[in-house]
């Protein structure tokens, strides 16, 4: 019974129902290459969602991570080209550290000046994007200039299947990176003091402080990790699409926040799980991709995502108020 009452179970149920529905409308949905490409689309949004989950659990919000992701990605690739360096581990590390540094700025303003996180992250987001496009450059780096090592790395497949006509398709190994990061986040949230302090902060900041949590450490940890994950995901993304576009990720914050709320994280803070978030991400990506399969005009995408946000937040608000009452 306890299993049935968990929000993850409910989300998984809705997800299955939606899959059956979409599959009935268009059987092409169940083809292996479509499922593989769905999982591939989960990777970047999913990694960013882990950061947003952490921020939402702590009762905050972050709209700056797409800007951090694009800045870390573009600056790293520009740097690689300037130095003539062709590798994987060091650039990913550099992008992660850049994201972490940007996130630290968010943490500083949220903690030091007690400012509403939305307004702080709106400011840092505009600064980072403005700096990137105004100072660093606006031109795309195309496949002919992209570092080959990154592309090779992102092309690795876990399994490869051959189609009857001889072409092959596979499941990208990037899924493993996503799963690994998700597992790490799960362990941090459930089994470390810093993870528990994020829940405490989101539940009641004053109570968390009196219970002896060092809120400065917690807030910096939350925003630094969110930034670092965004930076990492940004560079990985450019390797996967063979392109570094300094105008990328515009409006992505809404998709990711929608996915996390859809996954059962509370909009009031204090609740949320990695498993739920992964299901939420899968649901959002599936719905967006399936709009095309179901022959819905692509102009409707924004409306659909907006409605999902409203429905998911309304449900979350209803559930949490009932629990409180």
């Amino acid at each position, binding site marked *: 019974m306890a299993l049935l009452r968990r929000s993850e179970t409910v989300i998984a149920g809705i997800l299955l129902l939606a899959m059956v529905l979409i599959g009935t409308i268009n059987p092409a949905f169940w083809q292996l290459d479509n499922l593989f490409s769905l999982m591939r689309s989960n990777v970047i949004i999913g990694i960013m969602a882990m950061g947003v989950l952490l921020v939402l659990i702590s009762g905050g*919000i972050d709209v700056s991570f797409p800007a951090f992701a694009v800045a870390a990605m573009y600056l790293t690739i520009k740097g690689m080209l300037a130095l003539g360096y062709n590798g994987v581990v060091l650039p990913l590390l550099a992008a992660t550290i850049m994201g972490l540094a940007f996130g630290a700025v968010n943490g500083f303003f949220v903690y030091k000046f007690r*400012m509403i996180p939305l307004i*702080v992250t709106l400011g840092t987001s*505009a600064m980072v*994007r*403005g700096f990137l496009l105004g100072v660093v450059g606006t031109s795309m780096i195309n496949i002919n200039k992209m570092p080959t090592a990154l592309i090779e790395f992102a092309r690795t497949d876990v399994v490869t299947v051959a189609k009857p006509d001889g072409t092959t398709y596979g499941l990208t190994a990037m899924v493993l990176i996503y799963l690994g990061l998700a597992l790490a986040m799960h362990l941090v949230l459930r089994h470390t003091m810093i993870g528990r302090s994020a829940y405490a902060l989101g539940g009641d900041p004053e109570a968390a402080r009196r219970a002896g949590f060092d809120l400065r450490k917690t807030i910096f940890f939350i925003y630094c990790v969110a930034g670092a994950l965004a930076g990492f995901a940004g560079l990985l993304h450019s390797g996967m699409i063979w392109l570094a576009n300094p105008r990328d990720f515009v409006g992505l914050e809404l998709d990711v926040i929608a996915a996390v709320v859809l996954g059962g994280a509370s*909009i009031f803070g204090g609740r949320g799980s990695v498993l739920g978030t992964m299901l939420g991400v899968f649901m959002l990506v599936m719905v967006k991709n399936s709009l095309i399969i179901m022959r819905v005009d692509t102009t409707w995408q924004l409306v659909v995502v907006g409605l999902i946000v409203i429905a998911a*937040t*309304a449900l979350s608000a209803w559930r949490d108020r009932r629990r409180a009452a």
Partner: protein
Amino acid sequence: MKAQMNIRSLVNRDNNIVQLLVMTVLIFAVMTALSPDKFLRYYNFESITYIFPELGLLSIAMMIAMLTGGIDLSVVGVANLSGILAGVLFHKMAGAAGIADTGILTVLLGGVIALGTGLVAGTVNGLLITRLGITPILATLGTGQVFTGLAIVLTGGPAIVGFPTAWAFLGNGKILGLATPFVLFAVIAVLIAFVLSRTALGINLMLIGTNPKAALFAGLKRERMVLYSYMLTGVLASVAGIILSGRTNAAKSDYGNSYLLQAVLIAVLGGTNPAGGRGTVLGITIAVAALMLLSSGFQILRFSNHLIDFIWGAFLLLVIALNAYKNRTR
């Protein structure tokens, strides 16, 4: 004598206004010093009076949402959708004479539709926030996306070009030598200032924002007041949309994207407390004027738009830091 008293009480009540005025004069002086021949031209100030009202109205709308500790991230979406719905109507109703000569009745109908859009959008926001209990940030983030999405569905992406002459007058014309949008803004600003400081609605909103629990125990109708405030916000956003579409003679789903950040920045800079309870129309007006001078100065100095975005963001963080510093010493 009475005027003097008024000024003194104003200064005592809110020294934020004085600081804003000092900042405005400072910006003016620096920009004049940097490029006296271009910045001081009459044309420069005239063009500011045309662009300033859109942003000013959006900022006042943002301030009203912030009074109760909320925020409205859908204002730009509402503004664009209003302009687009009116534009769609004009294109449907346009006779053989062409859109420019559309009759005054049709133009009035367009105005009603645009304002109605704002009212409905604001009501939706207000109901989501008060009835369903969604936090204002996420509710308006979602509805803003829906409004922008509907605008894309209606237009298919490209701009709707061509509005009636009478409509364009609202964004381009002149009344007694002053820009029409500027006159509109002045009238609306005075009206809102009156509503906020002299009516039950305004006082209630301030009280709710200052202390929600005390307001509840004092028997204030919190839900209804907050709903009204978001309806007002929506209508103000649609007026901004009317002026924007009239001025540019076009309406598009992604116009004024950077207005959102600027409206938040101006609201905070103008002395509004984002946690609720404090905010004045006068503060907003001076803050818009200051930022408009700053932005036109940077444009004359040939800064790119991206760089100006960077400066807006930096300015916002600076203002946050300064406000926090000020509150600490007090």
